[in-house]
């Protein structure tokens, strides 16, 4: 394992030879050839540096692609990160996942880099060409790196959802992988969600879709809440879904916090059955009791996750529900968002699904 240098963003130019080499493109060619330097960094460690450009809206070139491993991250994390971002950018700019590698005199990559070939092989993708990754190879590679389950891929394919589009939403940060799994396996019409056709005026269909999406957002908020205790760098939250859209949350480190005098504790490396129910205040008032009963019926670690609207239930009813939860020894986790805020967030994500104008969520150097 080779350590890559820690980047001090405020201090000035970075001493690493690959980054120096990448920066030389800007000095030598300026804007003339539209070369851009991209880097993939995690926790201030640069894992991948590359130089790329788009010619018209037809061709995506890479002139430099360098990656290094670091002991804090899995092997080939830099190659995978760099590849995912390059493929996303190629898809965004040219509409296809074709990457051309440019050798001398313009570039430093006469062939597809060996590191990419190695990763592709380990993922079961054979690269046929010497100088470029073809569109079909790129698509397959993209889906394999994203790592959706076979079940989810099958479900999406059966419903006519372009698997690349689904993966692209993950890498753009619209939905995370667990959320896409949930949508693929439990939404009535995943194709509506991935094509932005979730319209409020088709009210029943809209509510049906929203129930799954609200569950997905609640799970994300719960993950953020758990990560905020130790800091996101040290906590890893994994989620698996059961048949009833309950999340089985597993944490790398134990967490505990107090909310309004109630202590909430989650153990490490054990499945916590999270029942995620997003309702408005009236909904909790009417259906809260059955929510508590259902969530509290498990023998394993469990919790009930609710929205901020829970605060606005009439006080007597709220105390009654809290009492029931406490009696069942059921932690009641409240996220900071109201259902209205969650819906607004979902609307925004759905709208962004149809737009591919924005580049990959990455900072250009």
């Amino acid at each position: 394992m080779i350590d890559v240098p820690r980047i001090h963003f405020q201090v000035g130019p970075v001493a690493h030879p690959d980054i120096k080499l990448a920066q030389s493109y800007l000095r030598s060619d300026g804007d003339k050839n539209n070369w851009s330097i991209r880097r993939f960094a995690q926790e201030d460690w640069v894992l991948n540096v590359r130089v790329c450009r788009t010619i018209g809206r037809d061709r995506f070139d890479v002139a430099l692609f360098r990656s290094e491993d670091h002991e804090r991250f899995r092997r080939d994390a830099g190659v995978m990160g760099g590849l995912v971002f390059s493929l996303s950018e190629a898809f965004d700019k040219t509409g296809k996942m074709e990457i051309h590698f440019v050798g001398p005199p313009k570039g430093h990559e006469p062939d597809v880099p060996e590191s990419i070939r190695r990763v592709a092989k380990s993922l079961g993708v054979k690269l046929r060409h010497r100088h470029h990754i073809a569109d079909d190879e790129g698509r397959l590679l993209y889906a394999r790196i994203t790592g959706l389950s076979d079940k989810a891929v099958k479900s999406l394919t059966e419903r006519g959802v372009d698997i690349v589009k689904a993966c692209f939403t993950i890498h753009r940060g619209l939905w995370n992988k667990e959320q896409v799994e949930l949508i693929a396996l439990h939404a009535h019409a995943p194709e509506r969600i991935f094509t932005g056709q979730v319209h409020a005026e088709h009210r029943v269909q809209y509510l049906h879709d929203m129930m799954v999406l609200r569950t997905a957002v609640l799970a994300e908020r719960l993950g953020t809440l758990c990560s905020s205790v130790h800091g996101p760098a040290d906590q890893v939250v994994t989620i698996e879904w059961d048949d009833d859209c309950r999340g089985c949350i597993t944490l790398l480190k134990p967490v505990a916090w107090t909310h309004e005098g109630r202590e909430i504790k989650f153990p490490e490396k054990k499945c916590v059955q999270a029942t995620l129910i997003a309702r408005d205040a009236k909904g909790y008032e009417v259906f809260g009791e059955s929510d508590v009963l259902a969530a509290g019926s498990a023998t394993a670690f469990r919790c009930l996750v609710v929205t901020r609207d829970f605060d606005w239930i009439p006080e007597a009813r709220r105390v009654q529900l809290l009492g029931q939860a406490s009696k069942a020894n059921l932690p009641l986790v409240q996220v900071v968002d109201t259902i209205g805020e969650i819906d607004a967030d979902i609307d925004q994500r759905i709208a962004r699904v149809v737009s591919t104008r924005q580049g990959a969520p990455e900072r250009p150097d």
Partner: protein
Amino acid sequence: MIPLQVQLVAIPPKVWNSWPPDRQLVHLANDALGIERRIQKGVDVVKERVRYRQLCDWIEAKALEAGQGLGGKAWRFETDAKSGQPSANDYMRLVELLASSQMARQTFAAQRAKTSSATKVSREIVGKTVYPPGAAVTEQRQLFEQLASGLVDKLFPQVAGSERKAWAEAAKFKAAAYREAEAMRAGMIEVVAPGTRALPSGDPKVVGRKSGVSSR
């Protein structure tokens, strides 16, 4: 399959016209129709959709309140239906298919054309949650009565018989509720909400693959 429940709440005319005190259901339902029309015309669609969502959320919350203690009557579909009752998921699936089926649209549109009505009704025939008293409720009752008595088989012959039977049961249940509402001259509001199921004992059955991605 996400557990869900659908409540059909009949609101008596007196409550429909006079409650809630600040803006009554009768006006709120008209507002919803107005927004639908503006969306159809393409007027400020993004904002109108947000308004529509908020308005329907409000109407449905008020319907739940009315169903609890203001003389409203409620029928409920649930995912875990008791014996003899249709499942909420069957009902939702039927509505989704009816809304997207071209043949169903044509059938319903032809029927609507035959019955002239002065009452304002939504342009979409299925998939709404607010049905004002009068023509809208009657239309729903008629449609679902027909579905229960063989129209499901005609519209979806490619679907398995057991599934069609379950849908016909759901249609029958809804038709009965709307018949009663019609007799009361009530308006109907449908509330679609998450359902809950008791957890099975033992290890949870998990679908999907475990991932190692950080929550960030």
